[in-house]
């Protein structure tokens, strides 16, 4: 359909492999290269989540609420990051009586890792000539949605295994919410797939780099957020529910069920949950960026910088919603999900299919 804009970019494992072992690689060498690539990407994302959690979130919320927030440790309070890390990890790990042991321990790990593995297929653009994408399978979008969905399992495990009624309620709410909102999320995502005709993420991104219209010499790229703004809005809303932020922070709902599935977690397990949630927000941001905001494309700056800017913009949006929008009630949430979002997303899908079928 569309010709790729540039020659097939080299994926990160291959770059690393060539650097270490030359162009001819044995299987084990490829594996080492792939592992190193995953290590690099995971650390890039963890670094962002680590900044976002203790520092950026507080700074952003403070800005929304007329406060100053962390400013005592280092420039702009940045040293709060190591301080928070030490503080959280130095806390006692309390395992309550009667928890369901393997599940209780696995849940936080699963949450953090399920969000991380989603980044394997995200085209993050290149910096210093190195393309940061790990893999580019033909089923890329299907894979990333599948990876993001595993989080629900983690929340359910945590809620059930904690032997706490608040946790249980949080776990149940998480299931109800994720089922209700993941369908619209994926169906809306599918409307993009109808446009592109491929699930391959690099291809989706490449197609969005085409200019849509040119106004006064400024060409507007055909990002799907511009091509189909309706789908974009739907996707953003469903994404808020998917990552559990206001108005859809039902599974945690501090004033109602204390901390939901997290109630009984402390110390490093809590850190994993906390971090997992932030990585999950960034993964949500990465999916939105890939499907609707043209991935890493953008003028002047390197692609990777654009990618980071875009996912942080989405992070900012979730924090904005958190600071300004009330939480809906659980029954209202389900109602909005099944009666509103689902219908709209299918309408969008069918409409897109008709338009694509007739016009293209």
């Amino acid at each position, binding site marked *: 359909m569309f010709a790729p804009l540039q020659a097939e970019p080299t994926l990160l494992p291959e770059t690393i492999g060539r650097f270490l072992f030359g162009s001819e690689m044995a299987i084990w060498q490829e594996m080492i290269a792939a592992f190193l690539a995953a290590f690099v990407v995971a650390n890039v994302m963890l670094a962002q989540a680590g900044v976002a959690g203790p520092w950026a979130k507080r700074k952003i*919320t403070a800005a*929304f*609420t*007329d*406060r100053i927030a962390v400013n005592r440790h280092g420039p702009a309070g940045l040293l709060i990051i190591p301080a928070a890390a030490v503080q959280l990890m130095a806390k006692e790990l309390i395992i309550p009586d009667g928890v369901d042991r393997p599940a209780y321990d696995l849940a936080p790990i699963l949450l953090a890792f399920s969000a991380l593995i989603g980044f394997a297929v995200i085209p993050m653009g290149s910096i210093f000539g190195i393309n940061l994408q790990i893999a580019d399978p033909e089923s890329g979008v299907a894979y990333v949605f599948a990876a993001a969905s595993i989080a629900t399992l983690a929340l359910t495990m945590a809620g059930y295994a904690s032997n706490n*009624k*608040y946790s249980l*309620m949080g776990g149940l709410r998480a299931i109800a919410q994720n089922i209700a909102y993941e369908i619209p999320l994926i169906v809306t995502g599918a409307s993009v797939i109808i446009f592109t005709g491929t699930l391959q993420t690099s291809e989706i991104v490449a197609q969005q780099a085409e200019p849509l219209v040119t106004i006064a010499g400024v060409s507007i790229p055909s990002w799907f957020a511009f091509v189909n703004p309706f789908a974009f809005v739907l996707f953003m809303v469903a994404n808020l529910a998917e990552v559990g932020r*206001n*108005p859809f*922070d039902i599974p945690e*709902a*501090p*004033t*109602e*069920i*204390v901390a939901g599935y997290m109630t009984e977690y402390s110390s490093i397990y809590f850190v994993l949950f906390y971090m997992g949630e932030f990585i999950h927000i960034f993964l949500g941001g990465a999916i939105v960026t890939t499907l609707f905001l043209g991935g890493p494309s953008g003028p002047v700056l390197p692609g990777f910088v654009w990618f980071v800017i875009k996912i942080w913009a989405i992070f900012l949006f979730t924090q904005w919603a*958190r*600071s*300004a*929008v*009330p*939480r*809906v*009630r*659980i*029954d*209202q949430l389900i109602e909005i999900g099944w009666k509103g979002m689902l219908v709209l997303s299918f309408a969008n899908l069918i409409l897109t299919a008709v338009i694509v079928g007739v016009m293209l």
Partner: protein
Amino acid sequence: MSLQERQPVGVTEDGLDYDALADLLGDRVIGREHHLNAEGFVVRPTDVEETLELLRDEAGFDHLSCLTAQEYEDRYESIYHLTKYDDRTQELSVVVPADPEDPVSESAAGVYETANWHEREAYDLVGVDYDDHPDLRRILLPETWQGHPLANDYHQDRPQLVPFQEHKNPLEDDHHDAESDTMFLNIGPHHPATHGVLHLKTTLDGEQVADVDPDIGYLHRCEEQMAQQGTYRHQIMPYPDRWDYASAGLLNEWAYARVAEDLNDIEVPEYAQVIRTMGAELCRIAAHMLAVGTFALDIYGDFTAIFMYAMRDREKVQNILEDLTGQRMMFNYFRLGGVVWDLPEPREEFFEQTRDFLDDLPETLEEYHDLITNNEIFQKRVIDTGVLDPEDAKSYGCTGPVARASGIDYDLRRDDPYGYYDELDWDVITENGGDNYSRFLVRMQEVEQSARIIEQCVDLLEDWPEDERTIQSNVPRTLKPEPDTETYRAVEGAKGELGIYVRSDGTDKPGRFKIRSPCFSNLSALESMSEGEYVPDLVATLGSLDVILGEVDR
């Protein structure tokens, strides 16, 4: 039934005709007492329910404002302070003596719902045993407590030795029922939504509330007993600041000032009354700002923008109050017969600061309305949830913004005027929804009305002639009211009717000092408001009641 017959018994053009009321009750009245605020009818402990029912249905006494219990040398006594939501000046006390050996008295819980909690408190602290009470448990003290602290034979120093067995989980037996498909859930005492240490024993059916039983008393500090050990003149005034401590200090102080001035015939100079009125309304704004902020916190679920805005604007009021009283929370600014000192010098600066705040207020409130009142999600959450019918509100003795949001036009500042309120131009706000939204709206509008009052006070104070600025009247160093003088007086606190009953015993300390807390009565209505609702609505309803546990538990 003709209109003529519906006219409540005992109401005449110039007040209440106690003889007609006594005729209505017939030989149930075995004696008459005179209290400063109202006539007291003495009835037998077996006639309580009938008497109160007659008074409620025939004479229109629909508000059991307070219940005081006390022990004399020769008897126990319960006093039901009755009044009317339509006319607060019509008051009547029903005095029920009980046998000193076996203090049994009939319960009034069948007539007024609010008697339920009040009688539990009387049982808990004084030891009167209310017959036919639906649920006569201790309410403020732990269930294992031995003795009744306000009874005469109570030993303060006796240690509370309770066998370990008594402390075993009290929930164990009744709540782990394998057959039942409901879930028992403890909300609190440590929970983000309980605004202090409140424990809600909740039974859930799925996410819906099947039953909720507030368990209070975690913040009980023996305020009544402490007041009974202080002298009228100076030692009691600091305590009221600690009841509703969410900036409503001056309103509470006024409750004590009013009752003590009434008891000792103390006149308050007009200038001091204006300062009091201004200070009290500043406190009301601060208290309502906090209520609005924390209510939003319950709905939004985080320390979000609106909470911080409310705190920011409350801070401005706090600064004004700090300049006026020298304190930010525990003001201790009122004195019997006036206030402790005049406005801070330079006065112009103080007036300017207050005016600045008042000038900014409309814009601020507009911001609040944009951010929350008009927010669709917010409306979806709070409209038609936590509904309190006017009838229920009256039966539970709800007052203040909670009652006014249910359409009950009842405000002591207007209905039983004190201070300078009847000279000023302001309105009583009512809403008819009875839901969480109405309670929120009432508070928002009351802030505007308070601002109106403050503005008029500032104008008055600014033009007050310099040689007439008397801040205190001449009050004797020691106050010893006549023995056995009794009175019950209330003011409009931030949360509603804050009343105090005092009986003097001829010394310079009160013989009995009973506090009627508005939050206590308002909180008791929670059960009827939240049954069948979702947990989030229970939390929202609790937030909209705006309880301060320091005042509930005293």
